Each structure stands twice: as structure tokens, then as C-alpha cells.
């Protein structure tokens, strides 16, 4: 059974990017430290891999997913990963206004979060689904569609930028810490959403 898993690097003060993020500068000012744990890389997620054991473990889990759900902004800031995030799995790109041109490579545009999750699950063939991007995370949370959160907590306060948890309605979402791994310059915290609570 596929789990819908948010995967995000986040500062201790809750930002996924510093201020002034944009195309080609997806992490904003000062935000590059958020991805330092991934090690050096270039084009596309496959060009990275942490050299430490815990980092490699969580990274490999992320790239063992069978589909990716992301937001239009994240997708475009990343140059659309040239149409292939990893292993040619489907990339569902959430957007209110799909462009006329089809999405590149293995990406496709979706306007509704529930439909994105449905399509991703169907495509993932029992593997987990990776959710990436703050707005997409918020949409999934609001719709009650997220099963787990894998947060890479980076020891820095960015002060300003784009928040991971923002614009959510009031009310509890109870979580359970499933795993905490300490890597060099990062804590990997995996939480499960408790629906029975």
C-alpha cells in the first residue's frame, strides 16, 4: 500500500527557502544550506547522494518512491528536472492553470490534489509516493491526504523566507515520531499522521 510521504528540508525556524527564491534560485538567499546534507550534485536529484550512512539511507528511500507530487513553483524552479525526477516515475505537477503545452517527459499537470494523489498511487505500484514543495504539502495536509512526513531539519535559523507550514486551518493534526536519525548537520525526523486521534 503506497504511503503519501512529504519529503522536505527545513530550517529550525520552519523555512524551506530563504527570501527572494525564484527560478534558478529555488532555495532563496541563504537557503542553500538546507540542501548541504545532500552532498555535492548537479543536474537532477540522481546526481546527489549523501556520503554519510544515515543521509544515504533516507536519500535512497526518497528515490525509491514510485511517483512524485509537486507544485508548479517547485517544478519550475527546478527546471522541471528535465521531465524526469528519478527513474522515469510519473511526476504530478499541481497547478491551478495548466499551460497549453504538455508537461515535459514524465511530468503531467493536475489541477486537483485528490486527483494527483489518486493518480500517483495508481502509478506507484505499491511503492511510496513522494510529495515535495511547501504549497503542495499544505494542500495535501488540508485535504487529509498525507500519511507521513520526512523532515530534514537543518540547524540554521533563516529568519525569513518561505514557510513549510503556513496557511493551514486551526485544529490538531496529531503526529507520531516514527524515526529520528542524526546525520552530520541535519536531523532526519519521520512522522506519521495519526488519523485515529
Amino acid at each position, binding site marked *: 500500500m503506497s504511503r503519501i510521504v512529504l519529503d522536505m528540508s527545513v530550517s*529550525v*525556524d*520552519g523555512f524551506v527557502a*530563504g*527570501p527572494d527564491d525564484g527560478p534558478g534560485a529555488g532555495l532563496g*538567499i*541563504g537557503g542553500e*544550506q538546507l540542501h548541504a546534507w545532500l552532498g555535492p550534485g548537479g543536474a537532477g536529484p540522481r546526481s546527489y547522494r549523501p556520503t554519510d550512512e544515515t543521509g544515504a539511507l533516507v536519500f535512497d528511500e526518497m528515490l525509491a518512491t514510485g511517483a512524485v507530487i509537486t507544485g508548479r513553483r517547485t517544478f519550475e524552479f527546478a527546471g522541471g528536472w528535465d521531465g524526469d525526477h528519478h527513474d522515469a516515475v510519473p511526476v504530478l505537477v499541481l497547478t491551478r492553470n495548466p499551460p497549453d503545452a504538455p508537461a515535459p517527459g514524465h511530468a503531467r499537470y493536475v489541477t486537483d490534489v485528490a486527483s494527483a494523489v489518486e493518480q500517483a498511487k495508481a502509478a506507484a505500484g505499491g511503492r511510496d509516493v513522494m510529495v515535495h514543495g511547501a504549497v503542495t504539502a499544505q494542500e495535501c*495536509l488540508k485535504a487529509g491526504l498525507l500519511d507521513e512526513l520526512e*523532515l530534514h*531539519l537543518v*540547524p*540554521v*535559523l*533563516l*529568519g*525569513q*523566507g518561505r*514557510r*513549510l*507550514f503556513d496557511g*493551514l*486551518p*486551526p*485544529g*490538531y*493534526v*496529531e*503526529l*507520531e*515520531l516514527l524515526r*529520528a536519525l*542524526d546525520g552530520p548537520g541535519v*536531523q532526519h*525526523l519521520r*512522522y506519521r499522521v*495519526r488519523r485515529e*486521534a
Partner: protein
Amino acid sequence: MASVRLDMTISLDGFVAGPDDGPDQPMGEGGFRLFNWLDRRDDPGPSGEVFAESLATRALISGRRTYELAGHWGGDHHDGVPIIVLTHDVPDGPPPGSVRFATDPADAAAQARAAAGDGDVLVAGAGAGQALLRAGEIDELELHVVPVLLGQGRRLFDHLPARPVRLDLVRRLTSPPGEDHARRVTHLRYRVRRA
């Protein structure tokens, strides 16, 4: 040398209180959920350990809002240590117990460090924490991260400048296996890296 340590309980989404906090509802709507872990404050184990450390500090800096909501702690937060309340507007009349007022964050930190001697300084309250962070006066953070999303409320990290502050994790303590869900918490201690 005293370490000035911001000690706060937060939800995973970064709130210290739920929405609509005020005198009638100090923790905001639903915010008391954050304090369940304190049921373990007198027990052996991680939560007891970090709570004992907070009460071993030798001075307290509090924001005005926290001070008022806590009923001034009756003038004594713990062991009669000096309580320095950061406020824009110093009240008339003599302050209760070991309370004194400061209007400037750097001055509050200097007073607290002097009073604490070799001991540490506890900082309580989001407003005081932010003011001291802006002034570069926070040495350590002790965050009690509760596995819940509150969605809205009062944020711990807000109104800070876009100036990255590098931290180093000093310690991570997690509730023991078998702890009942409502009382689980992760205690993260960071040290502020000085440039």
C-alpha cells in the same frame, strides 16, 4: 560564563500557542496540548532531565506578555532568582519579588548574565526570544518539539531579519519507547554558532 538559553515548547509547525491567545485563554485555542509533556517533569527520563535543567538556571528573562499571563509567577519563578522582564512600557510602582524591568534586550541580557554568575540564564516567551535573537544575545536554544500541527497561532520564530544564524545540535532527547502518545516530545538543544 553564563549561557543565555531560550527554552520553549513548540508544535512541529512552530507555534508556542494556538490562535486567539489572551488573558482569558493564555495558550490560545487548544494550545494547552503543547504542555502535556510537562506531566513528566518530575519523573526520571528525558523530560524530567530537561525540566530540572531549566530550574537550575540562575536568572530568567521573560517577555512582558508571558510575565502577565503567568500572573507574574507571584514574583518568584524558581529559587528567588532574578526575573528580568523585557517591556516597552515599565509599570509604575515597585515590582513584585525578584522581578525587575528592562527596556533594552542587550541590557536585559547583561543584567541576567551578571546575576547568573557561572549559572545559565533561562529565556521564556516568544517575544523575548525574538528580541534577544535580533540582538544576538541568545547562546542556546532548548526546543521541546511536540508531535502535533496546530495550524495557526503564535509563532516562536517570527519577525526576525533575513540573516541566517547557524546552529549546532548539542543534544537530542526523545521520549522513551512506550511513553503514552499525548506526552511524547523531542527535546532539541542547539548552540548558536558565533561568526
